[in-house]
């Protein structure tokens, strides 16, 4: 009897310890896995809700039938396919995009969006899936690449720009600081690029998207260097959505590795953007 009782107590004690350990592991896992209402909702509903300002082709816009199209739209749908969820878009003005995340109205912003560091108390950003900004375009034959300071490179050159655009302001700034810079303002970015193709200017300083799309049809031109004042486009989620963010980051990395992102960029902007 005494030995049985001792054995029972021993077994009970061990069981109790095991039970405590199991409970501790469960509690530790719960603590380790942050709550993410957006991710839970996506799983439950089988739907990813994407906020986008569809007024910005080729990233996000509407066609004559009101249907969305663009690089951002394709990116969202590619993510949805990989996750096995449907994608629902909310077309909303740019100023409201981050607000939709804060109030839990939408899950993610995919909208040619450049991260706003001052908002990181409320939102979190993925790695970039595209980099815009201002580009310098030159002729392949005889054109001078930018290997150092762009301002110094500009010395003695005629720079074609779109009148009144950012490239125009930048070129004028160079002209004030560097000897021999001539600014050639034209009505459109395409005209500025055509001027380079025609040999009427040494380079065009234009918006990256305009440059990429023009280069797609002009193999005689090329980029002089990486974007000046680069603008990386990212996706945004609520700061309370760490699990969703992690999944987006993983998916972006996979898309980068298997060429999906490059294919999207090339499809919408030409090979120079790949």
């Amino acid at each position, binding site marked *: 009897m005494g030995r049985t009782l001792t054995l029972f107590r021993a077994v009970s004690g061990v069981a109790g310890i095991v039970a405590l350990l199991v409970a501790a592991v469960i509690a530790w896992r719960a603590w380790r896995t942050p709550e993410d209402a957006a991710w839970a909702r996506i799983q439950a509903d089988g739907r990813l809700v994407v906020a986008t300002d569809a007024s910005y082709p080729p990233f996000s816009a509407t066609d004559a039938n009101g249907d969305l199209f663009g690089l951002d739209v394709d990116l969202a749908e590619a993510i949805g396919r990989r996750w096995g969820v449907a994608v629902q878009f909310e077309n909303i003005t740019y100023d409201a995009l981050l607000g939709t995340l804060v109030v839990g109205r939408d899950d993610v912003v995919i909208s040619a969006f450049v991260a706003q560091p001052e908002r990181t108390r409320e939102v979190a950003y993925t790695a970039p899936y595209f980099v815009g900004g201002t580009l310098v375009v030159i002729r392949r034959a005889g054109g001078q690449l930018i290997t150092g300071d762009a301002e110094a490179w500009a010395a003695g050159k005629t720079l074609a720009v*779109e009148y009144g655009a950012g490239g125009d302001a930048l070129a004028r700034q160079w002209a004030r600081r560097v000897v021999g810079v001539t600014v050639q303002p034209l009505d459109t970015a395409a005209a500025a690029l055509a001027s380079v193709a025609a040999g009427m200017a040494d380079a065009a300083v234009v918006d990256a998207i305009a440059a990429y799309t023009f280069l797609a049809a002009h193999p005689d031109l090329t980029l002089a260097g990486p974007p000046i004042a680069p603008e990386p486009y990212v996706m945004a989620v609520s700061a309370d959505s760490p699990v969703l963010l992690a999944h987006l980051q993983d998916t972006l990395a996979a898309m980068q590795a298997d060429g999906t992102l490059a294919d999207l960029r090339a499809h919408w902007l030409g090979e120079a953007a790949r």
Partner: protein
Amino acid sequence: MLAGIQPPRATLRLGPPQTVVTAHPVLCVHTRLTDEVEPWKVLRTLELVRQMGAPTIVEYFPWAYAESRPGQFDWGHADLVVDYAANQGLTVIARLGGLVPDWARTPPDGADTVDTLLPYDRFADYGDYVFAFVQHFQGRVKTIIIWNEPNVTLEWGFRPVDPEGYTTLLKIAYARAKEADPSVQVLAGALAPTLEPEGSDLGLNDLLFLERMYAAGAAGYFDALAVHAYGLGFPPDEPPAPDALNFRRVELLRAIMVAHGDAAKGMVLTESGWNDSPRWTRAVTPGARIDYTLAGYEWAETHWPWMQPVCTWAFRYPKPQNSYGDYFTFVSPEFVPKPIYDAVKQWAVP
């Protein structure tokens, strides 16, 4: 000893008071000095406004910046902006809307809210802020705008827009403003141009919103109506229509005012302009933007005697927005004037 070694505090000595030289007093710009920390940048911005020939600015004075704790006001940055504007001979129209302090919008459960959320039981607190602002700036700021674009969901805390609710807020704010300074001019609305129908979760058509404001008794609680009108892809003389968004839409709002007996009241176009982004579907070319902007000012001078002034969005941002919004500005964050700045200056300054 080391604790006492500090770099000299930056000082900025203002020069003698300046006067705006302009042939077009209708000219006004919406500056965005709210988040401009460095005094020299505030002054430089206002110098450029004056040199361009604009005698008036609209500036945003966020509630949360002034009253981060209930009843405790810090007017430091606001004073700097107003005093520098006065030094440059500029008249300030103060927008008092949005950026609700955390303490006034955080629910008991601590859930996240957007900073445009003003709970209905906090309207009196907003009234207190209006009173304090008007009292503090009496004699220096003579015109205030109550809230901003209350007819769009984003600006109403992502709640369904509520013309009657906004009118209640307006009544409270108007009374408190007049209590502080009976001579202050109170602008209602700052309505956003939108075609959203009743029941939309994005907002409400500005024409309908204004009608409902009048129905709720707003007439006795504003001195002039603030409105927003962007040209988008259309020239300034594009005729107005209830189903169209363009520069002359304000004439439809004017008609509503007149129909409700408010012909004697003026209007202020507190946001307007054209955009020259290379990709925004609602933009025009940079050259067209210049032409339309100048023609817009001239249209207002010729056809809108009740509109004074016409304020263009936005003069400069402290940092790039990295969106099509950057293409509304006249001067870059680095203080590089854009061609539109040069064109307006050439037009305005005799």
